[in-house]
């Protein structure tokens, strides 16, 4: 790692460090866990226990603000829309679309800002007001930077139109002029209002000549004596050429016209035409582009970039984008005190004027505590093909890195994690891996949430995660004795092993209680039965019971036999099955045919020979029961065999 860009700031954590212990920490996805260790800071004294609490330190508290959440949701919508337009049009025609998307983003920021301002007005809690004020100013700065980037990079206007856009930019961010103008015009005598001339000069500085003329006219009407002077000024203002991009005039023609006008203004100044009225003289000096005069009205300009644009308007309206940085640097130097260090906002704007995108992004990343702005702006610029795709040291390109950071921050939020999924989707290199790791850690309190998470995984063929989530839900259901739910989860995951486990549970229940629980489930398994052998056995066994209950003995017998011979039944269950066969063998009419009886006997022999090999340590009572059962079975089988042979040997009369 190279040298640090800025000095790291210190965050005070209340309650930690009081006992002079070392502090330990652990990184989380969006925050740090901080705790006091047992080790003293200095000396080899006895180490006592540290404080009992673990502190969660969050860098980004914005995602927990209810109003800013709207920003995240709406911008997510725009982001997804942006990713999806790539395929439609060739890149030449996409610029208007990109500009409109950029405007969408900005309008979302503005809407949030307005809402924050409204809420700040209505609360009374001082700390909240301060917080809202903070957020509003950050949003203002963000929108300012975004707008400038839109003008310079996305819209990328050539000379002539560039200045028009810059004028719009400044006008949008210096809205107090309109307020002042309204105050002045609505007062009883506008011309005697103290802010009258300020309003006129502000309009002129912003290039709003028509409005300046409207306000001036009031003064002109009051002083008929000086009318010619006012008329001269009026004509100057009216004749100022404004480049019309839609018109037939070329840039060179406009330049020529503008120079003529400029010379005329200069002549008026040299002639001392406005000597009688110092205000009009000031205006004329501004029209000529006199920087000192403009600097005299610093408080009307407010910011160095306003100064820059006004300078360009009256000095070099056909400025080319490549020439901007020179003017920007000099404007900033002239406007600001050289003693104070430039604010982060100023250096970001300067970097933008110098067309140094990477510097802009880097400075914004440092200045803001949230990746939202840089992630979305970089993504948009990347779509406009403005970022060189040089790879960073850690594998992905800049856009992907920023989007991943932003989305990871979102994922740590209890609710906004769903938005993050779409962001990961559009990071081709690492998005999938990040998503795979994060999605498994979403806490699943209800089935509905688990279903949503599963749907996300299934849509992206993340089979591992599907299996693991289904297994978690199935285990939870099983521990709560919800066998049906557990089964439906294992069916979804196609998890044969778990289905076997569940069937074992059912069978154990049956053995204990002698009847099935949850008949509605077992009776209606359908094709899910085939998921696991044990499950199939369960279904078929239940069918056997049903057939027996409906006295369809022959079918029941056939089924029972097939369960054993087709090896569907587990060995441990054979004894139960044979015992179930007993009542069928004891029936008056012969149900099992000779062959079937032979097979039954064969199964019995297999079973007894197996169990005699293993030396069971069973209590004597069990042994007795076992031998009695066996004897009964053998007897019943022998009798059945006899009756069957007789029956099959008899010729029907």
């Amino acid at each position: 790692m190279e040298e640090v860009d800025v000095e790291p700031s210190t965050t005070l954590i209340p309650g930690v460090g009081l006992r002079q212990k070392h502090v330990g920490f652990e990184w989380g996805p969006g925050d740090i866990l901080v705790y006091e260790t047992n080790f003293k800071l200095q000396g080899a004294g006895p180490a006592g226990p540290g404080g009992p609490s673990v502190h969660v330190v969050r860098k980004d508290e914005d995602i927990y603000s209810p109003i800013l959440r709207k920003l995240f949701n709406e911008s997510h919508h725009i982001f997804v829309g942006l990713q999806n337009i790539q395929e439609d049009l060739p890149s030449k025609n996409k610029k208007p679309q990109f500009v409109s998307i950029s405007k969408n983003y900005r309008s979302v920021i503005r809407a949030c800002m307005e809402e924050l301002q409204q809420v700040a007005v209505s609360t009374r809690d001082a700390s909240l007001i301060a917080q809202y004020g903070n957020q509003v100013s950050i949003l203002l700065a963000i929108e300012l930077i975004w707008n400038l980037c839109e003008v310079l990079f996305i819209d990328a206007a050539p000379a002539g139109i560039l200045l028009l856009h810059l004028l719009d930019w400044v006008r949008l961010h210096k809205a107090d002029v309109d307020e002042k103008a309204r105050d002045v015009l609505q007062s009883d005598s506008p011309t005697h209002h103290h802010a009258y001339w300020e309003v006129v000069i502000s309009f002129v500085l912003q290039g709003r000549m028509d409005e300046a003329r409207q306000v001036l006219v009031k003064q002109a009407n009051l002083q008929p004596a000086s009318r010619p002077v006012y008329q001269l000024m009026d004509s100057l203002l009216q004749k100022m050429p404004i480049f019309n991009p839609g018109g037939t005039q070329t840039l060179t023609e406009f330049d020529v016209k503008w120079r003529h006008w400029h010379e005329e203004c200069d002549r008026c100044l040299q002639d001392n035409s406005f000597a009688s009225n110092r205000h009009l003289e000031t205006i004329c000096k501004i029209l000529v582009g006199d920087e000192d005069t403009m600097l005299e009205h610093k408080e009307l300009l407010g910011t160095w970039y306003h100064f820059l644009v006004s300078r360009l308007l009256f000095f070099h309206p056909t400025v080319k984008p490549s020439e901007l940085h020179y003017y920007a640097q000099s404007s900033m130097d002239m406007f600001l005190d050289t003693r104070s260090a430039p604010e982060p906002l100023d250096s970001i704007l300067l970097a933008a004027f110098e067309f140094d995108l990477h510097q802009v992004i880097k400075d914004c990343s440092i200045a803001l505590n949230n990746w939202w702005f840089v992630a979305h702006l970089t993504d948009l610029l990347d779509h406009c093909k403005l970022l060189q795709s040089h790879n960073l040291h850690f594998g992905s390109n800049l856009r992907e890195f920023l989007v991943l950071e932003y989305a990871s921050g979102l994922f740590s939020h209890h609710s906004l994690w769903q938005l993050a999924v779409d962001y990961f989707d559009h990071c081709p290199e690492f998005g999938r891996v990040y998503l795979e790791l994060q999605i498994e850690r979403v806490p699943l309190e209800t089935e509905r949430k688990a279903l949503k998470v599963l749907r996300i995984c299934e849509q992206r063929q993340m089979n591992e995660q599907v299996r693991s989530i289904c297994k978690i839900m199935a285990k939870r259901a099983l521990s709560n004795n919800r066998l049906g739910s557990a089964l439906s989860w294992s069916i979804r995951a196609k998890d044969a092993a778990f289905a076997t486990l569940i069937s074992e549970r059912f069978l154990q229940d049956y053995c204990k209680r002698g009847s099935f629980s949850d008949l509605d489930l077992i009776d209606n398994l359908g094709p899910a039965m085939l998921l696991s052998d044990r499950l199939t056995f369960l279904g078929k066994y239940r069918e056997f019971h049903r057939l027996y209950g409906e006295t369809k003995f022959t079918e029941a017998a056939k089924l029972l036999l097939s369960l054993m011979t087709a090896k569907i039944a587990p060995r441990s269950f054979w004894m139960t099955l044979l015992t179930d066969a007993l009542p069928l063998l004891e029936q008056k009419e012969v149900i099992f045919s000779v062959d079937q009886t032979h097979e039954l006997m064969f199964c019995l022999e297999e079973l007894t020979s197996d169990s005699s090999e293993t030396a069971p340590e069973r209590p004597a009572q069990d042994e007795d029961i076992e031998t009695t059962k066996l004897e009964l079975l053998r007897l019943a089988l022998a009798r059945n065999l006899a009756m069957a042979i007789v029956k099959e040997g008899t010729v029907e009369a």
Partner: protein
Amino acid sequence: MESINAKYVSQKISKTRWRPVQAASLHQPHCFATGSWDNETNHVCIWSVGETGMICEDDALEGDPQLLCDCKHGGDVLDLQFLDQDRLITASSTGAVTIYKLHANSQTLSVAHVWERAHHYQRASAPCTGVVCSSPDVVSVGEDGRVILYKADQRGIARVIENADSSTIHAVTFLRTTEVLTVNSIGQLKLWDFRQQGSEPAQILSLTGDRVPLHCVDRHPNQQHIVATGGQDGMLCIWDVRQGNMPFSLMEAHSAEMWEVHFHPSNPDHLFTCSEDGSLLHWETSSSSDTPSFLQSRNTSLISRSAAAPAGGNQSLISAWLNGDSSKGRLETTHMLPSQTLSVNSLDVLGQCLVCGTDGEAVYIHRRVPV
């Protein structure tokens, strides 16, 4: 599309319901409730959309919902129903069923009564997944497989059907005043008759084939034997409860779970479904005859038994849904939301107004639904 308003509300919406309008008035509904989920603290909120005749200084704000009042809710709101004009019931992921009272004068919402831990396992609480009411009866179902009957004005629980289902019951609806129909996560519909004692369902219906979990169910407003269900694979099924085991028609509606299905309460030829895939569909079926709808009898049970009488007018009396075969071209489907959003969790339709809530923390309101 122009009459759709979207509002971002900073909470993921799990349920939205219109507040019922007075029976005698012909007004469109202008007030709705939302429940949130997946927040650290969840809220039940009441919003007002404003009457369409109101003079607004800014046209853009007309139709923009304003928050009237809200109340904290413990756990996710998994279901929400209005009991009457002033009371609503919620089902919570903590297993509680809560009645909220809306005080019209002070425009506040407060808890009137809670049945805590109505749904539970042996050691933990179980989420209550659905609640339905037909005043004064209230029925709730949950992940613990219980069906519980309450009376809205009594503090205790009226009746519990234990172990009604071995899997999670996702939704419930009233068929008649004493019968409810539940759907569960192994794809079965079970009919419960409260007049019978015991914990066996009166009838079980299911699809043969894959047991796809069913998530929502709604009954036809006029014909009590017709229900529509939506499943995990996005299939819309129309069932006739009297007849056998098979659904009458199956339609592929969505590409992901269907969360809610609603018949339009006064124009039942229209059906609305919303799904995890972010779309809200409006289904319109056209009946074949020219008989005006007010002649179609509400009490169809007599007539449909004698369906053998093929007098021309009778065909229309058997609901057009039971003829539903989308390939015959009698079924029209339209997307109601302008663009793809995150999952649409809930919708409600009353009169000409439709409201829906999404996981994108937005509520969409459509004031001129073509019904």
